[in-house]
């Protein structure tokens, strides 16, 4: 008999929420460390991928909080190396995706990750308004969000010279549709809450 997922346990354990939302079972992980051994970002992460799963397995609230506040979840590149080698087929990138949105929802985003979140946000807001990626808009937005005003000054001019930067945004015809997609998702989320 597996444990019933009721509202109470849901509030308590991140592990169960992940199971419900993504279908991934944290308990499958037997802590072999193979994911971490192959992770290109392990050196940069504050919690290594296998330790992160171990922390979730314990159901200790302090550790769950640490996970949501970690830089790890933002550094993960979704390169899928871990998943493709995990003997237990734990889909870590999928779990990372979940943890990122949960971390944002709980306002627990790691300070060091603010650049990354800012980049993702700028990216999506460009997509929302243009329908496609508009590099200049993106970088401008990103810089405004992060104050990394000097970043990429050495690349941008060459990009422009090589014909790699478009000056005009690549507007698509039905831009409003894209914006509506964003809005409907937001509505749905509000409803689910």
């Amino acid at each position, binding site marked *: 008999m597996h444990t019933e997922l009721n509202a109470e346990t849901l509030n308590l354990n991140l592990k169960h929420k992940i199971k419900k939302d993504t279908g991934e079972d944290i308990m499958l992980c*037997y*802590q*072999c*460390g*193979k*994911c*971490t*051994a*192959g992770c290109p970002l*392990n*050196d940069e992460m504050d919690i*290594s991928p*296998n*330790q992160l799963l171990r922390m979730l397995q314990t159901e200790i609230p302090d550790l769950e909080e640490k996970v949501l506040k970690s830089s790890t979840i933002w550094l993960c590149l979704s390169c899928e*190396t871990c998943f493709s*080698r*995990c*003997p*237990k*087929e734990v889909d870590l990138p999928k779990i990372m995706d979940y943890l990122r949105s949960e971390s944002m929802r709980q306002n627990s985003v790691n300070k060091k990750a603010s650049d990354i979140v800012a980049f993702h946000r700028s990216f999506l807001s460009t997509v929302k308004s243009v329908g496609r990626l508009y590099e200049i808009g993106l970088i401008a937005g990103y810089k405004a969000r992060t104050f990394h005003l000097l970043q990429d000054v050495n690349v941008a001019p060459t990009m422009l010279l090589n014909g790699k930067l478009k000056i005009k945004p690549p507007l698509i015809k039905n831009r409003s549709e894209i914006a509506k997609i964003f809005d409907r998702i937001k509505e749905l989320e509000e409803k689910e809450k």
Partner: protein
Amino acid sequence: MSRIGVFVCHCGENIGATVDCAEVAKMAKDFPGVAFSIDYKYMCSDPGQTLIKEAIKEHNLTGVVVAACSPRMHEPTFRKVAAEAGLNPYLCEMANLREHCSWVHYKDKSTTLKAAELVRMLVEKVKLNTPLYPIKVPVTKTALVIGGGIAGIQTALDIANSGHKVIMVEKSPSIGGHMSQLSETFPTLDCSQCILTPRMVEVAQHPNITLYTYAELESLDGFIGNFKATIKLKAKSVDHSVCNGCGECSAKCPIKKIPDEFNAGLGTRPAIYVPFPQAVPNKPVIDRDNCTYFRKNGKCGLCEKICPTKAIDFSQKDEFITVDVGAVVVTTGFDIKGTDFFPEYGYGKYKDIITGLQFERLASASGPTLGEIRRPSDGKIPQNIVFISCAGSRDPAKGIDYCSKICCMYLAKHAMLYKHKVHSGKASVFYMDIRAGGKTYEEFVRRAIEEDEVNYVRGRVSRIYEKDGKLIVKGVDTLLNSYPVEIEADMVVLGTAGIANPESESLAQKLHISYDQYHFFAEAHPKLRPVETNTAGIMLAGACQFPKDIPDSVSQASGAASKVSALFSQNELTRDPLIAFVNKNTCVGCFMCQSVCPYLAIEKEKIKAKDGSVIREVAKINPGLCQGCGTCVALCRSKSIDINGYSHKQVYAEVMSLFNERSLEYV
């Protein structure tokens, strides 16, 4: 007309205190078909038994119901009593008034009433009982042992030494199995060949053992005590009765570059070969797939010219022989995964990543390097060696969930042997858990760590790649907060998973035995019948059931041998006749029954017309195999199968007896 006798037992106070036994006997008298009824203090006592015997004779009873304790306790007693009084023992039934009534209910009218109903059920049943006779089958006291590894060798010797004949069938040119390939063996580090070779010779010389090497089972028919096995003797192309084993042929054979199976592919052998110097028999065979004579239509023939005894016989054909055996022991062992199984470790393309078995050959004094640990690529002695445990095992993603059980131990052994041979070298073992449950096993592993300073790192290796002649092994130490561990190794040994033989499934089908999801043969019960299969008369031993080490293989082999000897200690087998039978007239030949019988007891029988043409096929139950579970009975849609002792009519009568006179109002 039935004349049933009912004997109600008080069991002292056990039944008597709760159930009004006299009343039950009185009621029983009025049940239709009951000719005699009586209650008594202790039915199983001598006077009680005499009482029954006399009543049977005096009242000419055609059936008996003893209303007493559980049939699981005294059914044999009372059946014997019936037999002694001249009544067929299967015409005696017991009603369980003690365990199912007096002990579980309070003294009450309803309890007595229930007791009477229980009696009535059995009276109705016994009226429909028929005389049955125990099934007797003769036993052929010869055992067939399939596979000549250490498990097969031990089994054959144990059976042969208890005075019975053994036929051993080994598919390769020599017996010995994996153990003959090992260097030294844990947990004692004694030399494998030294302890194995004498036993191999004993097998060859034992008067009770007939050995067929280069042979395989073709088919097996029959049942316990009475199997017929057809064995295929593959053409050896050498007449072993004249060959003197001089070895001239192998030395001169121009084909030399065939990967040597015995050396796990690390060396080469000629087309005419003896697999290893201590082989039994120590005479060559020609590997026809690689011999020029057979590949190129009679060219070469050098061996024939050179052989001093004229033993070479290219014209030999595969031969088939049929033997009668009473029992079969399957000891076909296991296989191990190769290095190409591991994408993340280079798909087998790096020469210096080897399997444990290859390491055994490197460490063996009779191996390709004469016992020096040298890496395959350039023959250098590795200064930094890495062992990886659970390579493929405990890895559901690779389809193997189980622990292979032996690798923890042999990797510790390897690391130790390496350190003993290369004192300056560095040995690391990547592991997840160290499974060393066995007598002196844990001590063995600790010795590797404490005395030989083998570096055990807890973690699975993510990837190995080659760089400037080194193998870069990337792991982490999970005991150090997943600290990255990157080793530049000269050689890597994978403790690859032990798996079932590739042909195990087809062998199981020939033998009609079952196998598990990993294709290892299935034992009848994991705890209580670990050396038997579900097919009576077929036993298992060794690594064909699951990867296991030598001590376990040998214990199981002796266990299987003792099962065989116990079987052979009887001239005839007697079995309960409570088995199923088919009504040929109504059977429609759907063979649904065949698919559910756990003992494969149901065969097809051809019904033929006078002219010999087949009219139809019907089911036929082999009384030697049927265990009487009744699954087929319930399944047959045309109700063409019935079962002695639990026939349709009998169970029906039992149920109906409860309601025809709903609640026995006449009490």
